[in-house]
């Protein structure tokens, strides 16, 4: 155990050293290969130019290699694998896609993902905005924000245990130790097995992600609200607008861009939701989502890379519009530099 820690620390030190050595050494080699002689102005300027041409690529190389091997190549490979059979060896055309369309579990996953997409980003953004507005107006607002932001630090698995305890159900005449069932019982209702309740169990899983992500929305939206020019609100106050009107007609329209960013960020997260479903239900009781179905097929019966790839591609297709929008936005910003 101790030796493992020592070796991990050793790896960190060695890794940092090797990285630093690479950048330092490659720079030195560059200087040796293309020397800048003092007595030959022409040769010096040619070699300086060559250095300037090569140096960026030396700086970029490790990052580019990692990006290409771990992200660019796999995207292409997954696309190709989706046209192949379970072992990835034989070309099978569109049959994996045909399977997906007809598979009940796949359809269920699509339906559930749409449900998640409809509820979670909207709920997080709404709660985040309301809490941001409220906490900006009280002296202990920063403390409140910290507490609401804290679940961001908790792993999805940890959060699942936390919420599973809230949804806990005890059969028979046992005391209900789950908070939700205790509350239901207190008001005279019957305890339920919440996570196997058809259809509604999806919402009990979504509550976990909303609990985690509302803090994120709150932090971003709170910063945007503070950036609103004071004059616009002063003017509205003078014109006799109510607090409600100021919020909806003056403040919200001015932070529309930020709301969109928060919404899309959470949308991407929701598309990839995996841990919560795995730990809460493992896709049972009609709670399957695409990421879990994909993982399931990666290993089910020795694994089926073709079907698994198709499911991954569906998730990819869903984020592609956001990706294109982001790239355009970044290009626009760079043009303005």
């Amino acid at each position, binding site marked *: 155990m101790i030796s493992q820690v020592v070796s991990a620390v050793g790896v960190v030190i060695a890794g940092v050293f090797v990285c630093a050595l690479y950048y330092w050494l490659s720079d030195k080699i560059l200087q040796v290969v293309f020397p800048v002689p003092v007595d030959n102005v022409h040769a010096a300027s040619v070699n300086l130019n060559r250095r300037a041409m090569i140096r960026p690529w030396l700086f970029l190389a490790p990052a*580019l290699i990692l990006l290409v091997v771990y992200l660019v190549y796999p995207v292409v490979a997954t696309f190709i694998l989706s046209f192949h059979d379970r072992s990835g060896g034989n070309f099978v055309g569109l049959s994996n896609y045909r399977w997906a369309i007809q598979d009940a579990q796949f359809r269920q996953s699509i339906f559930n993902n749409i449900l998640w997409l409809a509820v979670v980003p909207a709920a997080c953004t709404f709660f985040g905005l309301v809490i941001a507005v*409220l906490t900006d107006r009280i002296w202990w607002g920063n403390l409140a924000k910290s507490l609401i932001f804290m679940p961001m630090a908790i792993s999805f698995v*940890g959060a699942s245990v936390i919420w599973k*305890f809230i949804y806990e159900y005890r059969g028979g005449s046992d*005391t209900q130790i789950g908070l939700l069932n205790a509350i239901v019982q207190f008001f005279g209702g019957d305890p339920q097995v919440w996570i196997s309740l058809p259809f509604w169990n999806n919402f009990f899983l979504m509550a976990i992600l909303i609990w985690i992500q509302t803090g994120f929305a709150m932090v971003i939206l709170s910063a945007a609200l503070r950036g609103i*020019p004071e004059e616009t609100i002063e003017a509205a106050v003078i014109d006799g607008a109510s*607090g409600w009107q100021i919020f909806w007609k003056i403040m919200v329209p001015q932070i529309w861009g930020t709301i969109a960013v928060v919404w899309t960020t959470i949308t991407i997260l929701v598309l990839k939701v995996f841990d919560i479903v795995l730990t809460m239900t493992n896709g049972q009781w009609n709670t399957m989502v695409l990421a879990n179905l994909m993982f399931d097929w990666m290993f089910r019966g020795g694994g089926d890379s073709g079907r698994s790839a198709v499911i991954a591609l569906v998730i990819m297709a869903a984020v592609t519009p956001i990706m294109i929008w982001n790239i355009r936005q970044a290009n626009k910003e760079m043009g303005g530099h």
Partner: protein
Amino acid sequence: MNAASSLRRIGLPRLIVHLSVLVICIIWLIPTLGILVTSFRDAGQISASGWWTAFTGAAETSAARLGEPSTAKQEGTNYVISGSVFEQGRSGAVRAFGTRVAAPTEFQVGQAADLGEGETLTINEDGSYVYTKNAPFGGERGKRVYLSVAAPPSFTLDNYRTVLTSQGIGQSFVNSLTVAIPATIIPILISAFAAYALSWMEFPGRALIIAMVVGLIVVPLQMSLIPLLRMYNEIGNLFGVPSRSYAGIWLAHSAFGMPLAIYLLRNYIAGLPREIIESARVDGASDFEIFVKIILPLSFPALASFSIFQFLWTWNDLLVAMVFLGTGKDQLVLTGALNALLGSMGGKWEILTASAFITIVVPIIVFFALQRYLVRGLLAGSVKGG
């Protein structure tokens, strides 16, 4: 004065705002509080009563046997058995009692309960009882009674001791550190160099690479898993090494965090004042020197922001660890161990809550200690993108 402070004057009555924020905070805190309190409770008490009763003390149902008929004494026309319902050396506070297991709170303490057939039973709060009958007691054994006993709050560290040693959570904690620390530090250095090249060096294809990095930020992990798993297996077979190793997951985490790292750092480094870098160049400093002596120290806030993200992400990750690491003791990370316990120990909340708390305590410390940088990083990553 800002927008918020002017709203303060015109908005809802202040009290309502304070109250609603208070209620929201309580709702947000209660789930975590629940497992924290439960993880310190005695296993028996956890299943006997909800964690919200932990501080007031719970009522436990227990059974006791009254004295045997042979110990009865005759008092006038009545036969009397007396004594204490508690075993010798024990004490407690009886709240109510009954003669059927289904109704342990049928009778109140201190009052004579009429049990029928001429029998009356009085049990006092301190456990002493008087059992009388207007005829001799029959049978051999003492009568069984059920008691509702107030159990004093009892907290213990046993749950933590159990999970850290016998459930392997201690080992998993070390495994998680082994994954997270290198996977946080390696990508920082690599992406910082790349970010510098992308902000302060002119070369053809720069815009294209930046566009690629921005695009890769949102590529779902799921797209990478299948080809990488195949690649790792092939490399493992080719060189006769295990395909699931720490080195493999360090590289995977580094690469998956790379697009966001380059993007965040580039935004920051590109915003550094041009004069500083130009004057260093004029003084004859090489790019390597500029980077190490000027860029790195100045970029500390951005580096800190990203390292917090990356640490939280690698520590909290389950999917990448499930694919790239084994499930053996020496490789199972905390999230994986917790997931396994959910399957094997479902319902044993003393184990689950203590394990969960060990899993979340490190990120929570990091969060509260470095919240400032986390918020700054979030703002740089999202508001700018909009």
